[in-house]
């Protein structure tokens, strides 16, 4: 079973600014969970697109109920590969990222396409899709709900982080002062996380009333 997520947002910056900021969005106030960032492959293709691979390490925050059941997963952070193609002719940036460890617990794959907005050429469009799945027998629904909650919260942070980078680099960005929108975004992510983590906790309790290490 896979949870699917889709969102589409307008970014009030030109596609050139967005593509440039994409490489410079870490660190930002919303990316405390991102520990390291490295380009591990990069090439300009014969048709003049830029393909890159970035390796990111992120903290593996699990809710309390999951920490008790999967203690060994706390040990290592999550490794995420982010592959991307910049096509300056078509004015698109396509990214695909996924985690390459902790995969038995949870797999989160995300595809983003950034492009010039069709309605307003000075703006850009960000289309984001994610597929969230867990293979753990008996707990997969709860873990997927948690995965989706964390993804939604991280997605808000990612959008805010890119806006922050755009504002820092180019003076573009939201018309509200960043401090307020940052506070609001953090409150919103806490609410989202709380609501969906309650749901996940209930699902976990229903799945198994006893503690068990056999799925680790």
């Amino acid at each position, binding site marked *: 079973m896979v949870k699917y997520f889709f969102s589409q947002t307008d970014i009030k910056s030109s596609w050139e600014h967005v593509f440039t900021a994409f490489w410079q969005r870490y660190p930002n106030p919303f990316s405390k969970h991102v520990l390291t960032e490295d380009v*591990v492959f990069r090439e300009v293709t014969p048709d003049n697109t830029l393909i890159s691979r970035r390796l990111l390490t992120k903290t593996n925050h699990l809710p309390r109920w999951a920490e008790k059941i999967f203690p060994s997963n706390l040990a290592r952070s999550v490794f995420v590969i982010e592959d991307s193609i910049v096509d300056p002719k078509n004015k698109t940036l396509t990214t695909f990222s996924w985690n390459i460890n902790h995969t038995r617990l949870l797999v989160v794959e995300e595809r983003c396409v950034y492009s010039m907005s069709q309605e307003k050429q000075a703006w850009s469009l960000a289309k984001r899709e994610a597929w969230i799945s867990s293979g753990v027998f008996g707990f997969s629904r709860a873990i997927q709900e948690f995965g989706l909650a964390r993804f939604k919260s991280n997605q808000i942070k990612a959008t805010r982080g890119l806006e922050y980078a755009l504002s820092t680099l180019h003076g573009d960005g939201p018309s509200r002062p960043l401090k307020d929108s940052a506070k609001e975004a953090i409150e919103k992510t806490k609410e989202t996380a709380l609501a969906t983590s309650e749901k996940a906790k209930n699902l976990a309790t229903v799945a198994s009333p006893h503690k068990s290490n056999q799925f680790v």
Partner: protein
Amino acid sequence: MNSVGEGCTELKREYDQCFNRWFAEKFLKGDRSGDPCIEMFKSYQQCVQKAIKDKDIPIEGVEFMGPNKEKPGS
């Protein structure tokens, strides 16, 4: 931002600076005059690829955008 290789962060920063300038001023504008960051990239990669091996990070042989192939709309 830090590199996964603790000793590679300086090399990473130098390369990133070069890349960001080339990306905005040349690449996006369709200028194909060549990559001024090649040497910096080589030094940075030597460092970070070693760190990746030392830490057993399993990126070897992973196909570019591999999982995207089975996704709808890819």
